[in-house]
């Protein structure tokens, strides 16, 4: 069996599905964030595969930008989680219900 574009896309979709499953299932904010990163990386894999099989570099450059945005996103997200922990002493999503009611 040849590892063509389809195989890469299926792998990317599988990783995305696993990350999505984790985002919905997990309670710990940090674990949710890690699964979110997994989804992001899975999508970059699809972009790189498309770019490679299309014979252009534009997808690779786009992934370059995605990596930059992801780094910024992780920095800000973790700062928010730390601020949240300092205020509420917890990172479990079930106890973060200030917007309920």
């Amino acid at each position, binding site marked *: 069996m*040849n*590892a*063509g*574009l*389809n*195989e*890469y*896309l*299926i*792998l990317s*979709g*599988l990783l995305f*599905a*696993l*990350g*999505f*499953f984790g985002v919905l*299932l*997990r*309670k*710990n904010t*940090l*674990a949710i*964030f*890690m*699964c979110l*990163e*997994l989804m992001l*990386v899975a999508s970059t*894999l699809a972009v*790189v595969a498309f*770019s*490679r*099989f299309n*014979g252009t*570099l534009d997808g*690779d*450059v786009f*992934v*370059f*930008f995605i*990596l*930059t*945005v*992801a*780094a*910024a996103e*992780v*920095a*800000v997200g*973790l*700062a*928010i989680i*730390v*601020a949240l922990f300092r*205020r509420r002493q*917890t*990172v*479990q999503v*079930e106890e973060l219900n200030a917007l309920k009611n």
Partner: protein
Amino acid sequence: MADSLFYIFAFFTVACAVGVVANRNAVNGAMCLMLCLMGIAGLFVLLDAYLLAALLVLVYAGAVVALFLFIVMLLDMQGGVKRPFKKMTAVASLASLGLMLVGVSMLGSRGHLATLPSPAAAAAPVGAVLKNYAELLFTTYLLPVQVMGFLLLIAMLGVIVLSKKFEGMEDIK
């Protein structure tokens, strides 16, 4: 050779992704995430994106996972009470996983992407040469590069503001 490498890396990556999702310990989850990123970097190498593979290892496996581990250490969440999953949450996430898997399998069975030429048969690939990257980054994508620089600056300022102590605010309970 490349095909068997693809399957080895794919299996490794998926196994580590399952580890990220299923691990109760946040430190083990972060380590699994790092291994998963290593596998994806290997796949990038198979796709001839050498620069991106190096960047993925440096930025993600280096900086991001280290940041995650640092925050896990800082927050020390191991002592909290372990609550069981709500039945509704488990059912909903399993249903969504099933739906996404059905979508992926439809892609595999019904998609017309297989008709695209394989990399061996494709026209001479541009190749992930640094010069080509630089040319694209400084001509076609010059504006996005500037925007990215600005975004990083804003993220830096935002993190500084977020990590300040807020004195006068009453607690939201």
